[in-house]
């Protein structure tokens, strides 16, 4: 058994190694890790803003702080701005980093490439309105636009490779840099021109290239869909979109909060004074948020704990420690970008598997009448571990199932965290 498992892991490692040596892959992963500090600051600021300065938040509600808060609007605005200018523009920054690393790899002018990448992505996110100044599609700029940010950056770098001249290294600092800029002129013009055309086209067609809206529409279209399979399928779709940097947390947080099924459940619970045997026990609202995303999409809390217990890499431990606080409150962007998890072939299996297994365990517990369904609304920013507990009006079995879910998640992540260790050792030896 153990031998067999090891051979499977070895084969995975080989595949992964081949994958890892691709240039695109290295550029993407490196760009993501560079963003970690900003994403972390943004997440913590978002957490503070949401947990302390929002009237509907967990801390405020549980400790009755709302009167104290109404006089402290300034803090909310402050943290709001910090979040918007770090986490809120992370896709644009990703475009910048990706362009830089691509240009560097092909020995082109990295500074100009990174500026071009940034501007190109901002143009793509531009919302063309007749009577206002500059306005951007904020979803495109945030975590949800990460994939397109990296893509635009990479393509910008490629344009520099094709059209630019190799970097002149020996420029004196006091001399003119015009020649250097001119080397890349055609690349800059081409990138900005193409992206402007694309942006105009998108604005004209009034469509978004982000799949968020599709998922949301699917979810509201199928608000009556209450089958377990639909729930698992949508949960899987949302998790895989997150894995590829195609969607963001705010969108996911709306999952299953609305719709006929959830209000029918709530009505039932209020009129029968119990959360047991509600009409729709297996919806997104009762399963995905409280069980399928403990610590954020992909059961990130389990990943962080697995790193703490099994990893031998200093970087992993440090990233886990820094991100622990936001992750406990289900803000996982820092881990997704820092490890990185997004687009990382190493974690694709557990990242998609953990939510499914967790939701499966929870629905089994409901089906076996071990616990009631999670139907009551919990305040914003409730810690992931307490969501099911509070959503069932303090049912201890629900809490136990949450803990069990985390333990199972840690076991699923364990071999992959260890594999990462081995790969790091191999790389060091090489």
């Amino acid at each position, binding site marked *: 058994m153990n031998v067999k498992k090891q051979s499977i892991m070895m084969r995975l490692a080989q595949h992964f190694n081949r994958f890892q040596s691709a240039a695109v892959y290295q550029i993407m992963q490196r760009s993501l890790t560079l963003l970690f500090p900003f994403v972390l600051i943004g997440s913590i600021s978002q957490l503070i803003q949401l947990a302390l300065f929002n009237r509907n938040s*967990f801390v405020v*509600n*549980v*400790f009755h702080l709302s009167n104290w808060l109404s006089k402290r609007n300034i803090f909310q605005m402050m943290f709001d701005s910090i979040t918007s200018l770090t986490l809120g523009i992370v896709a644009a920054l990703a475009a910048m980093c990706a362009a830089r690393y691509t240009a560097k790899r092909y020995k082109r002018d990295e500074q100009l490439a990174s500026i071009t990448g940034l501007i190109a992505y901002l143009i793509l996110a531009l919302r063309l309105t007749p009577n206002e100044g500059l306005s951007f599609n904020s979803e495109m700029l945030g975590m949800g636009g990460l994939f397109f940010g990296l893509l635009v950056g990479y393509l910008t770098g490629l344009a520099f490779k094709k059209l630019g001249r190799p970097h002149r290294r020996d420029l004196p600092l006091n001399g003119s840099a015009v020649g250097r800029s001119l080397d890349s002129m055609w690349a800059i013009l081409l990138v900005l021109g193409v992206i402007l055309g694309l942006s105009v086209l998108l604005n004209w067609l009034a469509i978004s290239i982000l799949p968020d809206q599709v998922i949301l529409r699917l979810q509201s279209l199928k608000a009556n869909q209450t089958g377990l399979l639909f729930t698992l399928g949508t949960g899987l779709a949302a998790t895989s979109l997150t894995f590829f940097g195609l969607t963001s947390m705010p969108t996911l947080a709306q999952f299953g909060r609305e719709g006929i099924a959830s209000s029918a459940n709530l*009505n039932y619970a*209020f*009129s029968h*004074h119990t959360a047991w045997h509600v009409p729709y026990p297996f919806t997104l609202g009762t399963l995905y948020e409280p069980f399928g995303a403990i610590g954020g999409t992909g059961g990130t809390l389990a990943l962080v*704990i697995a*790193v*703490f*217990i099994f990893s*031998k890499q*200093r970087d992993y*431990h440090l990233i*886990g*420690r820094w991100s*622990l*606080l936001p992750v*406990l409150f289900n803000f996982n962007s820092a881990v997704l970008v820092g490890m990185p998890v997004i687009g990382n072939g190493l974690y694709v299996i557990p990242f998609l598997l953990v939510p499914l297994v967790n939701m499966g365990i929870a629905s089994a517990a409901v089906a076996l009448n071990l616990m009631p369904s999670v139907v*009551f609304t*919990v*305040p914003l920013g*409730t*810690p992931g*571990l*307490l969501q099911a*507990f*509070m*959503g069932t*009006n*303090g049912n201890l079995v629900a*809490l136990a199932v949450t803990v069990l879910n985390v333990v199972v998640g840690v076991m699923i992540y364990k071999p992959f965290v260890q594999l990462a260790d081995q790969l790091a050792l191999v790389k060091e030896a090489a």
Partner: protein
Amino acid sequence: MAKLRKKSLWLLVISLALIGGLMWPAAQWSRQSVMTLAKRHDSRMSPVIFIPGSSATQNRFDELVAKLNANRGNRHSLLKLTVHENNQISYSGEIKPRDNEPFIVVGFENNKDGYSNIQKQAKWFSLAFTALTKKYQFNNFKAVGHSNGGLIYTAFLEDYFNRDDITVKKLMTIGSPYNFSETSITHKSQMLTDFIKKRKNIPTNLSMYSIAGTENFENDGIVPARSVEAGKYIYQGQVKHYTEITVTGDQAQHSDLPQNQQIVALLEQYILSKKNTRNTQPTPKDSTPSEDQ
């Protein structure tokens, strides 16, 4: 290596202990909140909340209430609120126990006309409304606004009302000048433009009745019929039902409208619940189905 792990695990244990410490207050909170919500859910109270027009006080509807109660055997108790400029609220009258359809009138110390005042009054109304929801556990209410009262309601529904535990079932505005004194829709007032811009915030399950009075073919002495009619650009297509009714004849003058016998009948027919009523009016065939439990 062991040190690295030890430090991380300590951090984890401490954080988990902190989360564990939150368990007790969290459980307390959810118990409390579920209890309040269940109470609201079970509540049978469905008040009618009136807002008077400009220059009128919280006593504006006394005559109307007397007429309604005379028809219906004094079932409805009357509570009056006045919101002062400093956001303080004073109360008079009371809601009798076991009255499931009390009348509540919300007046304002500053009851002047004009768009900026209407915006202020909408904010004051939202304060009064929040105070009422805290004191009484109703899960739905019916809204009646006379003249500018209808405009205040529109501003309130668009800017302040976003509760998912309370529904506004019906709204009746009586002679409300949605386009102020403009007699033509081609010239839209700033207020009407704003109302139309934000119309998407109005609840879609609302049944809306807009009543216009007319003394002649143009107006009710004060408000042009065209201005009342302009309400359709806000409500029609956004709410579940939008009905326009024009009342003419005796007492169709703007200020007489709240005690106009026809309007009293319309209120009984469309706004008030019908159970146990001694209705003196013949019930028309096309009346909306009763939604009360």
